[in-house]
């Protein structure tokens, strides 16, 4: 169990606003790692730096022993980092099956000539992709929606499609940005079980979430961010009893 994803002194500024300041993070293999913090704390910015969608103003990101700072998001994805988005970003005009198929992009070797000539490589690719995509869709309980346009689905279902799509990459680490947002308690419970299942299947998971109960039950380790700074890190119990965390969420209150 080594360190899989590590950030060193990451900072991200938007003009004068310091969205992320000097955050160090270490995510071990096989862990479910939670990132929490009040709205606007810089969680998503930090996330985007890790996946290469944003360039940091300072610091480094290491993944699996490789410095991935400044790499293009597509390259980072090929290395085995998959993510979902806070505001679901599905391919709305494609079916669920097609959405998931794109997730297998990095595993396919077809080029344009293969496609035109229907070479062996193309046929093999298409067969495998189709098979795996159908399997994955079944695994996430989406078989019924397989041929529906992703844009027409209910919110909770769209979240699952997005996770299915990310899983298609067969990532070493999966970054989920508020996966439980907009879900009812039953769906949240199902999602929580599913994420645990993913961990047992060998994925490492980082999750950003607002739902405290969800995070506390799910995560092995939690990092709390407020105003772009890391204020606490540790197991759920440690975080729960931390004074600064409570202040960040509930305010300082007055003492007489």
């Amino acid at each position, binding site marked *: 169990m080594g360190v899989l994803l590590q950030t060193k002194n990451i900072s991200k500024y938007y003009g004068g606003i310091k969205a992320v300041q000097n955050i160090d993070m270490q995510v071990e293999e096989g862990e479910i790692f939670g990132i929490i913090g009040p709205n606007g704390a810089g969680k998503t910015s930090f996330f985007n730096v890790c996946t290469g*969608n944003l360039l940091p103003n300072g610091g480094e990101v290491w993944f699996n022993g490789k410095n991935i700072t400044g790499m293009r998001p*597509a390259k980072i994805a090929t290395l085995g980092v998959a993510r979902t988005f806070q505001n679901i970003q599905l391919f709305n*005009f494609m079916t669920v099956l*097609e959405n998931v198929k*794109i997730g297998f*992009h990095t595993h396919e070797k*077809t080029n344009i000539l293969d496609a035109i000539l229907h070479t062996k490589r193309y046929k093999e*690719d298409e067969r495998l992709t189709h098979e795996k995509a159908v399997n994955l869709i079944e695994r996430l309980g989406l078989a019924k929606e397989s041929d529906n346009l992703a844009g027409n689905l209910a919110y909770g279902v769209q979240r699952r499609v997005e996770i299915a799509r990310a899983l298609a990459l067969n990532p070493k680490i999966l970054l989920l940005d508020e996966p439980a947002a907009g879900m009812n308690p039953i769906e949240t419970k199902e999602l929580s079980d599913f994420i645990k299942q993913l961990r047992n299947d060998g994925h490492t998971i980082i999750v950003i979430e607002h739902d405290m109960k969800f995070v506390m039950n799910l995560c092995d380790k939690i990092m709390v961010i407020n105003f772009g700074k890391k204020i606490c890190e540790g197991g759920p119990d440690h975080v729960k009893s931390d004074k600064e965390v409570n202040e960040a969420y509930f305010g300082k209150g007055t003492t007489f």
Partner: protein
Amino acid sequence: MTEKLKTFYNKRKTIILLVLFAMAIALPFLIEKGSVMSLIVRIMFYIILASSLNIINGYSGQFNIGHAGFVLIGSYTLSILAQLGWPIWVLYILAGVVTSIIGLIIALPTLRLRGIYLALVTLGFSEILRLIALNWTGLTGGPMGIKGIPAPWFFGLRSTAPHNYYFIVLFFVIICLFTSYRVINSKVGRAWMSIREDDHAAMSLGVDIRKYKAINFMFGAFWAGVGGALMAPFYTFIDSSMFSLDEGFNILSMVIIGGQGTLIGPVVGSVVVNLTTEIFRFADEARLLIYAIMIMAMMWIRPQGLAGTSRSVIANRSLGKERGTFLKKLLKKKEVK
């Protein structure tokens, strides 16, 4: 209705395609008039051009309005080299390859541009090429154009007559649609569509956006070049005025009227637009008005194009809602009265 047609087609795919093919072969034997036949050949040129533009605009969501520039390169490549005695059959393909390379050269600096910015670049590029063709007299004949472009030999015949040339164009139309179909139903096509839908998500799934956008431009440009090259021997004469911006808009409107992001859309579009132009020929300049009304009406009533279904890109107004709401509202008003 299009959905019904689709299921009907999927059920009897091979038979329908065979019947269509037989009809296409029989067509020149049924039509005697040379003028009608040359209209058909022209429609087929535009099928290739509109399909190639659809590859760029409809499938990867880039906005190219300077398609005439690519057509120009194809046309001039063939014409110039044909005068030097190169074999025409080879030149059809070579013109495509040259255009494809130019497409790559345009694509490389513009890969970061999207929407209206890319549109402006392609527009400028198309116009620059036209001006070069107009002014580089030594190479392109300048305002005089290039005359006497020979047609290829075809079964021992010079194939200038529309009845003969038809078969050459038909061959390329079939190859164009066939390759497009296969590419779109592969990893490459899916990557294009994912870029069109949401490039951030595509990136996060490991799609190399720059690479696939460049491939997309090259593929589209290739067929635009072949289309342009096909036109030259048929008209036997080309000059720069044939590749103005209007021509680019003309091709674009065929794609929009037919339906972006569908294979059959540009085919329908080029048939409809060319026939309309022909039918209203008596109206002279006024027919452009009819043409404009047609585009506006399409935008209103059926933004996804004639052949487009709810899956089409610009049908996004209808995602999750009823389609054709505008028309229904109109009809309802009448009922109330």
